[in-house]
């Protein structure tokens, strides 16, 4: 029994790392621009499909490198044309916009690549399990955790050590002052959005290795991201990371005892957090009222 629990904790961390990656991108965009990006799942799918299309030419590693940047680029364009006009207005409008964008992305993916699932192959040496007993620790899943760790580390370095990152952090707290201080807020928001979409594209490439690649691949992954953000704390990136991991582990452990409650547990956690500490575990004051 302890072995089963341990297995599931490990496994939960792996799954949680993936949720965290998605949620971080969503959180970045939410914190600075106040935009709930419903189209995040659509960009995830796009990242995966772009990688699939590039693979015959540049191989898996090339696709992994290039596809997220391509996706981020598309994100930059979308932000510039579609979302920027809406910043002055009620957050309702940007919400509806990303909602419509999500529809379009799914349909365009279906139109270009078809509704039929396409086979996404990862290098053979990555897919073998590390040991017979710990078979779920496949090379790919370890690789995924490492990559998520790298991405998170890179993100924190960008945010804490670069000027762009400093401006993003400042902008999250008080965008008006940042603007008054002479920073071009439009470009800031644009780049921040691109950064968030980069993470979505990366998540997409990773997801395609584990799941079937078809146009709705992103839609089921967006809800755990929301919950991760709410649990971890609105406005806090470390909180989002923590939230994602917590959800993953909680789901994994629940599977051992109450298999049918595996997903329910993440909603229960959300409900508890809202009751006891509405701003989330690591959330900041002032986000609530």
């Amino acid at each position, binding site marked *: 029994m302890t072995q*089963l629990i341990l297995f599931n904790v490990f496994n939960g961390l792996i799954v949680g790392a993936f949720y965290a990656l998605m949620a971080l991108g969503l959180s970045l965009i939410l914190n600075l621009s106040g935009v709930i990006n419903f189209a995040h799942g659509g960009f995830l799918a796009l990242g995966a499909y772009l990688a699939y299309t590039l693979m015959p030419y540049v191989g898996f590693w090339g696709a992994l490198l290039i596809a997220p940047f391509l996706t981020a680029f598309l994100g930059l364009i979308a932000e510039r044309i579609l979302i920027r006009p809406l910043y002055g207005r009620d957050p309702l409008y940007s919400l509806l916009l990303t909602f419509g964008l999500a529809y379009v992305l799914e349909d365009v993916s279906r139109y270009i690549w078809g509704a039929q*699932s396409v086979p996404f192959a990862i290098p053979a040496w990555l897919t073998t399990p590390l040991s017979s007993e710990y078979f779920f620790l496949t090379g790919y899943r370890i690789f995924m955790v490492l990559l998520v760790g790298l991405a998170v580390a890179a993100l924190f370095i960008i945010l804490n050590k670069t000027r762009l990152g400093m401006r993003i952090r400042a902008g999250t707290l008080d965008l008006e002052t940042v603007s008054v201080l002479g920073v071009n807020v439009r470009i800031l928001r644009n780049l921040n959005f691109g950064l968030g979409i980069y993470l979505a594209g990366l998540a997409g490439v990773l997801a395609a290795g584990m799941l079937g690649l078809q146009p709705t691949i992103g839609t089921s992954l967006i809800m755990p991201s929301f919950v991760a953000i709410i649990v971890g704390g609105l406005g806090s990136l470390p909180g989002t990371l923590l939230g994602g991991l917590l959800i993953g582990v909680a789901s994994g452990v629940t*599977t051992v005892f109450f298999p049918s409650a595996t997903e329910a547990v993440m909603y229960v956690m959300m409900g508890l957090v809202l009751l006891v500490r509405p701003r989330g575990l690591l959330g900041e004051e002032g986000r609530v009222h």
Partner: protein
Amino acid sequence: MSDETLLHKKVSRRTVIKAAAAAGALQLTGPFIISARGEQPIKIGMDDCLTGTYAAVGKNETIGAQLAVEQMNKKGGILGRPVELIIEDSTSGDAGTAVQKARKLIDRDGVEFLLGNVNSALTLAMSDVAYEKKKIMVATGGHTDAVTGAKCHYNVFRICNTTQMEAYAVAPALVKNAGKKWYYITPDYAFGHTLQAGLEKAGAKLGVQKVGGDLTPLGTTDFSSYLIKAQAAKPDVIVILVQGDDMINCLKQAVQFGLEKKVHLAGAQQELEPLMGLPPEARIGTWVFEWYWNQPGVAHVKEFNDAIHAKTGHMPTARTWFGFAAAHTCALGANAAKSLDAFKIAKALQNFKLPPEVALMPGVPYFRAGQNQLIPNQWVGKAISGGKGGPEDLFQVTEVVKVGDAAGTLEESECKMQWPS
């Protein structure tokens, strides 16, 4: 900061309004154009999934139906009148839309026949509409037993198998290839429940022992915890009953874990669409197909394959055949009854045998009287990666189950058909 950036000045509100008005005007002229034409065509309405999770299989069903209608029209149509196929998107799960479209097809478009749906639940909802409106419905791909079982209607027929029939077809092969200790991974909805129940029943007759099982929610992406549990129970075979994307996720992950080296991976219903979406190393296991394109020596199959390949660039799948046979059934029934009246057609279709150019199988399938369920051949075999037939030959047939061998009895189906007086 003004809302109108440079970009938006170019596309003004007025342009958008004008475009919308033009589109709206088109809608008003729509119905009038149709009635101005010469002879009134007979319409078949197809309410199937063109978007969402089931888009791929739903689309294939509609392609098969389209081919059938083209063939029908070359032979004089139904009762001498041309046939028109009207396709509506039921979406993959919104019952409100599916029912709405079914009513639209019948009330506004005046279809005489209703075809559909991939989703069992939508099929049931549509069959209630067909029953209420007294139109013939030929269910294409919803497998839940109730459609020609507990909730059967005199005017609703079905092409695809019931889950019990699939279970009877594949159980012996599972025992032979793998063993008698089974662990189930079952999707948690009616289709999954009845398929597992069917396998348990078929297995009981063969001495099969269930060592465990898990119900997985539809749309599960991560099967690792279920596979961990399954492997811990030490079965001979993990019986994977999830379908579509869930099937791809489960098999992909199971093979990544190297589970196929320790335990047999198999299941019941399998289709070409998920196999095409799997990487080559994951195309394994013992399964049953409801129809397969690679049937050397069987009449008319090659023409069908060629016609579909010309249309889509791919080989037909079981879903293509479901739509094809369903549409043809409407014509065959109406021509046999010499009428468009649902009651007369339903009577004419009792024990009706499909002709070879529609059946496309070695045996002679027929609609069982009192149940309206087609009893066809089934194909049991192994998934492979690239057989002799080409890149889409992904299934190696080991046995063709004869018509009727896996059919079970009429009593088992629980259908108590009520005929209007």
